């Protein structure tokens, strides 16, 4: 009995794995060939101005969130600036040594500049940048310092302040929710800004907060089912606007909001455009974190020979964060939101980041 059932199980698992693998490979190979043809089209005229090495965090190109935003910036650089690029992605549960090796491979392979996406590369960039003093490195979301490291940082709390204000203005019940992907300092910035914005509009507003997973479990950035459950709980407890600062888990938040007739707020990209078409209607606005702009800017500076080491902060003033107006659902409160925006830019309002 045991023997036959185990054999069957193994056979099913093996077939399944092969099929899924074939599908996965098919998908990624088609995107990479698209990317390379578009690059070839532009580089045919002139030799590439730079060979960009880009190291993604877990998920890589195609995660519909953070990494994809970086990929969009890289694609724009390929078409507009005529650069060549090589993209490598991380695997789950890897050590710092593996991240270092990835950056070394790129630097040694003649890729310059090298861009690392995500704070997980902090230690690796710090170490490898020292070994290759002639290569320019950039890291998104981390402040590791070095003479050849540029830090692309975002004022997520400022963008979150605006969507927090929007949530409070739109909430009929005076009750809003915050769904954070993983309980890490980066997401705490989103929460702090959101709460400050909501309270600026309505000091006695009720704000419900929930983080989907605890580190080192980073699954909360890519678990729509958990997002849905969390959002449902908040809506049941009276919330009518929910902010999903949870990467790929946001899809579940949108579904829950749709089912209950509530509103949702997207994150990173303009999710009223990028989310599943069925739920786009519930996304009243999104907190835009323009990783694509930062990545493109950095590559452009490199091509122009104007790279500066140290932090560049993409805040409201620099247009690095913003709120989205797709769908026209916040048009009626736009003047109020823009007023807050001006106050933050002028320094009249200081948004807390913790």
């Amino acid at each position, binding site marked *: 009995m045991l023997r036959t059932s185990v054999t069957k199980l193994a056979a099913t698992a093996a077939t399944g794995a092969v099929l899924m693998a074939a599908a996965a*490979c098919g998908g990624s190979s088609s995107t990479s060939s698209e990317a390379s043809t578009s690059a070839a089209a532009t580089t045919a005229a002139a030799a590439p101005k730079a060979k960009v090495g880009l190291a993604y965090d877990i998920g890589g190109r195609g995660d519909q969130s953070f990494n994809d935003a970086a990929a969009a910036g890289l694609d724009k650089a390929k078409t507009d600036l005529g650069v060549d690029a090589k993209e490598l992605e991380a695997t789950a549960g890897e050590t*710092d040594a*593996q991240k270092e090796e990835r950056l070394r491979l790129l630097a040694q392979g003649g890729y310059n500049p090298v861009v690392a996406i995500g704070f997980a590369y902090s230690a690796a960039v710090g170490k490898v940048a020292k070994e290759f003093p002639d290569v320019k490195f950039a890291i998104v979301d981390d402040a590791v310092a070095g003479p050849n490291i540029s830090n692309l940082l975002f004022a997520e709390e400022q963008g979150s302040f605006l969507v927090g204000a929007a949530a409070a203005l739109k909430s009929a019940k005076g009750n809003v929710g915050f769904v954070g992907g993983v309980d*890490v300092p980066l997401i705490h910035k989103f929460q702090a800004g959101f709460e400050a914005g909501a309270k600026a509009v309505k000091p006695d507003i009720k704000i419900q907060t929930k983080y989907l997973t605890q580190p*080192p479990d980073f699954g909360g950035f890519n678990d729509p089912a958990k997002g849905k459950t969390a959002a449902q709980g908040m809506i049941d407890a009276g919330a009518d606007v929910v902010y999903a600062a949870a990467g790929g888990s946001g899809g579940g938040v949108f579904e829950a909001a749709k089912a209950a007739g509530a509103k949702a707020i997207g994150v990173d990209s303009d999710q009223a455009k990028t989310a599943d078409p069925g739920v786009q209607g519930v996304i009243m606005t999104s907190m835009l974190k323009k990783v694509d702009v930062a990545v493109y800017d950095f590559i452009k500076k490199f091509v122009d020979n104007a790279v500066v080491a140290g932090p560049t902060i993409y805040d409201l003033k620099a247009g690095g964060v913003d709120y989205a107006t797709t769908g026209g659902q916040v048009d009626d409160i736009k003047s109020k939101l823009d007023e807050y925006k001006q106050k933050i830019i002028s320094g009249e309002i200081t948004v807390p980041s913790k």
Partner: protein
Amino acid sequence: MNTFLNRLMGRVKLGGLLAVAAPILAIVFAMLITSVVLIAAGKPALDTFGWLIDNGSQPRSIVNIVNLGTTYYLAAVAVAIGFRMNLFNIGVDGQYRLAALISAAVGGAAVLPGVLNIVLVVVVAVAVGGLWAAIAGFLKVRRGVSEVISTIMLNAIATAFGSWLLIEHFGTVNGNAIATTPIPDNAHVPAAAIVPGTQLGINTFVIVAIVVGIAYAVVLSRTRFGFNLRATGRSEPAAVASGVSVKKMVLITMILSGGAAGLIGMPELLGSSFTYNTNFPAGLGFTGIAVALLGRNNAVGMAIGALLFSFLDTSSDILQLHDISPEIVKIMQGAIVLSVIIAYELAHRYRLVAEQRRVSRELLEGAAA
């Protein structure tokens, strides 16, 4: 007791040529599966294997393979200690993460100087791993709770408990990472740059892994405790009949398995990161299960398996440089584990059938004569 499970756990040995044929058959079969996947994806299979071997034989890669393999080997031994007794310690993952976190905090406090601090960190890690595993052992002995269920649950609890400890007590926020206080320079395990052609050093914790491997082999095959452990794994009633206290064995084995799990995070903590942070590698316990199966719970087999897995894992970037999806590495690892299981099973069945034929032939000859 020549059952599938006993064969899977390496309790039944193959003799002679078959013992050599099975692993070779497995590797050939795994390469075939991988080739089919590669060709289906429109990638050159032969070139891919060439790139893998080329990358794996670079001096820098060799160092990385050995260092990562050290970690995988410790994980495999921790799992195998339980496996040999039919104890499925799925909780190795939670045990090592909690152990690494608490020992990192103790090491960062630097209550002892230099080498003594290293020893303290390792002792704390082993103790924490053992204690966490003991919960599952205790539940099994006292309440009959399946260790598979309890250790999986304890993994989740370890994650939540670990975050609470890190965020509320041990950790300080540094940019976007939360990390424990770094272990001071004088308590780092040195790296030995002994591979010519690279400055990268082999983590000297590899010595500890070798010692653990030898101890595992010797205790299991040369001591009374090892005999009792294996006997309990083969047949519980027979073990009871010969005076083995199964409950005591369960508890001790679980603690040993957890204690070994405590060592998994040590090469990374003492040789590379020097701190436990939110990016500390997770999931090594599950890699350990695969490597233990691959190595058939044999001390040398697991070492080969650990190196094979780390070789494949360090190849993921080089494949991407050639526009091959890094997922191919995971497929290869899965294919190898399945192939090894299938190849050994085929070899065992072949031997059984061959024996039966021989016996029946002899009987026939005897009847004819």
